[in-house]
């Protein structure tokens, strides 16, 4: 209904919104009943395994399938990256799939893959992403943008000046005039998504129709992906995903192995299950670009940064991109900046989106340098981070940051535990320290449609082509509808995870809770308005004076003029009331918004004899507008903090310098934090009415950003030494301590 005024209930009126609600699919998951793509067993299905290329850079000259075909149980051998008439195929990343085998058992498929005889011609390999000079020497670099912004007060170059020379002179002059100058090199290694459910599908053809169970965070659009690749139309493809075992930005596409699965199923005339192996998952199914920076910054006597001059590089794989130049410096934006980025072309699979693309790296590359300024001044990092809020790229957020910093400092007991960098109390060989990081994110709501069906018997069901990545999307949908209709949360039957449902955008960039809150609130408000119309006549109360609450429709404030929900629904008629409402991304709306700040602080202990870093406590203070489900929202933040711990201390892709091989692509060597590694985590939502009234804003990315910088800064505060690159492994911590000693 066009004249419906969409809005959220005030906090004192909300029955469900903002409360702690158990996730609806919680017990299904925790009892093992939830069926993920990997778990679906279709009648007569074949298991597919693929052979990944052992070399990081080579040509595939020939593939001999004869031995593989002889393995008992093998049904189809399918070539993926094999030479065609036009010659050999170039492979630029280890693990790239060469061929796949469908067999009656997984073991037979794996054995047959091992028996594929492939002739390779090895080519030169380069993987040394942190070494810019080596990359340049190997001609493995690509300019990735840059620019300069100078304070207008500096004037303009004269007519005779060469513009770039003049700019360079200005930057140099600003640095010379600075009271404090910090020059540093910082870095963050590439990591992989490492979804615990690997990428893959279980699928079958029904005539010309393809039914795909896909482990995807993009149910509504992967049908197009399959259709385009297979030469059919999207209506002939149904994509389903009830549960997904992790995506983190890597599962938006069918991927070429998904297409291969469909082709194999067609050849075999049987359903297939084609999931990547753990090794392949790490090698080819998603990684985050590395970033390394040379930076010089100059600050005044108060520690306010006046000039920033940086060059950063890194690799996104063989497409040779790096952390987006526009994100550096991060949040902080001095009046004078010069920045440049260079992509390094390495023999790795190209990166894909990872939770808050570019931000975690940019944050680390920037805010370590800011913290080194505090160290240099022997000033309190808190004060330096606070003072520099006068120059940030979202000036309207300065007061939010300041308030969040104050709250975080209280929660981590900053005043009690802080000491100047490297000057803390030492117990045995252990020192502790505090660090801070701040971040930003958009989090706008994605496009989403919801079909809401209310039955004359009072039953309620919703349909939406979204998916639940583990963020609790299902529960959010139910809470929003239930709140609007005045029902308990389990009264709403939520249907998501199918491309046959109304379109809803991909779950990426913290857009999903906003999206489904928009579409479900709109649909429910539109529907209840129609029911109000019918009830109004019966109760003799104007429709706009009715409210739905506690399982009844009632006159606002008059409990005696009321009609139970079921009775109200019986007024609908004999057919169910069906309402489809949608929200278009980018439309201004009272229900959702974008743009958040956020602060994280870490308290760490460092063993200076062994280089071990342990988290004692970590605090996240986050504004997210209106919270729908407090319980799952908190879980999101905990998870993001643990991922920050992972990137700060543990995980990294390790390439063999000679062969380029991804050496630690199994979980025994790809180090992730375990339960005992995470210390005490504290989550605080900053939600004054000024934030709540903005509506829903996405939460997935922001808390996954600044924790890494905060931990690095805490280690520096503890030891007085910067460990330049994360993850801060024991080796790196010891190397940094030793180098500092040598320099002293």
């Amino acid at each position, binding site marked *: 209904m066009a004249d419906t005024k969409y809005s959220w209930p005030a906090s004192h009126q909300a029955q469900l919104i903002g409360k702690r609600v158990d996730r609806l699919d919680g017990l299904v998951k925790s009892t093992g009943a939830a069926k993920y793509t990997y778990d679906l067993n279709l009648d007569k299905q074949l298991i597919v395994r693929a052979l990944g290329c052992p070399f990081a850079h080579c040509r595939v000259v020939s593939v001999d399938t004869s031995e593989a075909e002889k393995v008992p149980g093998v049904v189809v051998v399918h070539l993926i990256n094999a030479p065609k008439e036009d010659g050999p195929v170039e492979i630029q990343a280890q693990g790239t799939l060469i061929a796949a085998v469908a067999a009656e058992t997984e*073991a037979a498929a*794996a*054995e047959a893959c*091992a028996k594929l005889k492939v002739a390779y011609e090895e080519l030169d390999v380069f993987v040394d992403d942190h070494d810019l000079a080596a990359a340049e020497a190997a001609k493995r670099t690509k300019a990735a943008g840059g620019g300069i912004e100078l304070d207008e007060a500096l004037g303009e170059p004269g007519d005779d000046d060469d513009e770039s020379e003049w700019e360079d002179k200005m930057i140099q002059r600003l640095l010379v005039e600075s009271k404090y100058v910090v020059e540093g090199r910082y870095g963050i290694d590439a990591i992989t998504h490492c979804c615990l459910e690997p990428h893959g599908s279980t699928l079958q053809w029904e005539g010309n129709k393809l039914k795909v169970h896909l482990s995807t965070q993009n149910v509504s659009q992967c049908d197009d992906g399959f259709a385009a690749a297979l030469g059919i139309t999207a209506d002939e493809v149904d994509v389903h995903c009830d549960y997904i075992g992790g995506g983190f930005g890597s599962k938006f596409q069918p991927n070429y192995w998904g297409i291969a699965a469909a082709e194999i199923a067609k050849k075999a005339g049987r359903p297939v299950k084609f999931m990547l192996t753990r090794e392949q998952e790490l090698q080819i199914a998603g990684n985050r670009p590395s970033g390394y920076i040379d930076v010089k910054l100059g600050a005044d006597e108060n520690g306010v940064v006046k000039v920033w001059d940086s060059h950063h590089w890194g690799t996104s794989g063989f497409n040779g991109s790096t952390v987006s130049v526009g994100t550096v410096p991060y949040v902080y934006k001095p009046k004078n900046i010069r920045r440049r980025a260079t992509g390094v072309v390495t023999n790795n699979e190209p990166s894909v989106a990872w939770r808050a693309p570019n931000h975690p790296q940019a944050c680390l590359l920037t805010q370590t340098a800011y913290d080194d300024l505090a160290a240099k001044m022997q000033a309190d990092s808190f004060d330096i981070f606070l003072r520099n809020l006068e120059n940030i790229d979202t000036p309207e957020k300065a007061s939010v940051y300041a308030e969040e910093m104050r709250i975080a400092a209280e929660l*981590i*007991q900053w005043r009690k*535990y802080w000491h100047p960098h490297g000057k803390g109390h030492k*117990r*045995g*060989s*252990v020192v*502790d320290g505090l660090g801070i990081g701040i971040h930003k994110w958009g989090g706008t709501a994605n496009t989403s449609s919801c079909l809401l069906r209310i039955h004359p018997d009072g039953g309620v069901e919703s349909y939406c082509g979204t998916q639940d990545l583990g963020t609790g999307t299902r529960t959010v949908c139910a809470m929003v509808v239930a709140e609007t209709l005045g029902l308990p949360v389990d009264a709403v039957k939520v249907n998501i995870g199918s491309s046959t449902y109304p379109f809803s955008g991909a779950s990426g960039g913290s857009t999903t809770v906003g999206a489904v809150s928009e579409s479900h609130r709109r649909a429910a408000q539109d529907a209840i308005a129609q029911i109000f119309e019918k009830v109004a006549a019966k109760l003799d109360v104007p429709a706009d004076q009715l409210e739905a609450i506690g399982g009844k429709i009632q006159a606002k404030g008059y409990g005696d003029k009321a009609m139970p929900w079921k009775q109200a629904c019986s007024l609908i008629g004999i057919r169910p009331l069906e309402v489809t409402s949608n929200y278009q991304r980018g439309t201004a709306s009272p229900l959702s918004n974008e743009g958040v700040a956020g602060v994280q602080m870490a*308290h760490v*202990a460092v*063993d200076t*004899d*062994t*280089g*071990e870093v*342990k*988290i*004692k*406590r970590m605090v996240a203070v986050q504004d997210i507008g209106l919270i729908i489900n407090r319980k799952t929202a908190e879980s999101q933040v905990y998870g993001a903090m643990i991922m920050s711990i992972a990137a700060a*201390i*543990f995980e990294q892709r*390790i*390439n*063999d*310098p*000679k*062969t380029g*091989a991804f*050496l*630690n692509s*199994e979980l*025994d*060597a790809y*180090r992730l*934090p*375990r*339960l*005992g*590694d995470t*210390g*005490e985590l504290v989550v605080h939502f900053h939600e004054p009415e000024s934030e709540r009234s903005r509506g829903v804003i996405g939460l997935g990315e922001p808390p996954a950003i600044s924790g890494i910088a905060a931990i690095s800064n805490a280690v520096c505060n503890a030891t007085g030494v910067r460990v330049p690159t994360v993850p801060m*492994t*024991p*080796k790196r911590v*010891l*190397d940094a301590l030793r180098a500092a000693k040598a320099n002293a």
Partner: protein
Amino acid sequence: MNNFEYAQPQTIPEAIELLATADNNAVVLAGGTDVIGLMKRFVVNPDRVVNIAEIPELQRITTDDTGNTWIGAAVHLDQVLDSRSMNAFPAIKQTIQGISSIQLQCQGTLVGELLRRPNCWYFRNGHGLLADSGRMVVHGDNRFHAILGNRGAAKFVNPSRLAPALISLGAKVRIAGPTADDERIIDLEALYRTPRSDREMENVLEPGQLVTHVMVPRDAGHLSAAYEVRHGEGPDAPLAAAAVSMSVVRGVVRGAKVVLGQVAPTPWIAAGAANAMLGLPLSEELAARAGMESTAGAMPLSQNEYKIQLAQVAVKRAILRAAGLDTGDIPSCMASAELI
């Protein structure tokens, strides 16, 4: 993995027979926590798998009348941890606790842990135990590789976490086979060797042989402890480790055995470290000096020099821990900021 013949003998002679008739291509299965993964990765490709887990004789921990404890090859780590007979050996208990994975503790066996194959990523990624006569390691990423005993082709480190503790306590192993009558009892350290060629393994077992028991000698009133430097909690490989067993009379060290783990292709007996302590009063300085001595002769590769310090610290802390002194490290599994 390739298919194989599976056998589940009920007696040791049956097991030996099955191993000895397998044309040099059999593996012993007990807990499976290592070998099954290696088979899936086609690193180990046996034609016969002999599961010894159901041999009653191997499922027991027994104490003989001289007070030595015999732990069968099918005994799980948690059973060793729980066994009263192990109460006198903190080094063993601490190490099993340090694995801190209830699955691995309950599924893995002690003997299996001692015979775990190296974690070297070149080996596990299919390049062989020596990885091109050590060249791949030397020119590659060797951050976790050997700093001691690494002059030959073997650059991997022995992965066992229990071996240092057991060797320091003077443990022996009983080896049966290749015929039913063959039985040998050797020092645990003699089980390991540094392979010189691709035909050799990292232990001395011949085809048809089986480690049936580990023997931990009777408690001689020694102090013992183990210390592992880890990158995070859990079952993943430590970076360096040490175990010590020593007799201390009125504060003076009268005898000691110091063994390093994760630093050499075999568990590494640091005789110099032990000698450095003899006759001297135990102190933090002495422990530190023993640590320094423990890595004498170390030859770091391009990326693993830091392991020298880690090994030294592990020795120092193992000694301090054995003596009941403060190791001065971070309490593991900290849950609160107050804990420091």
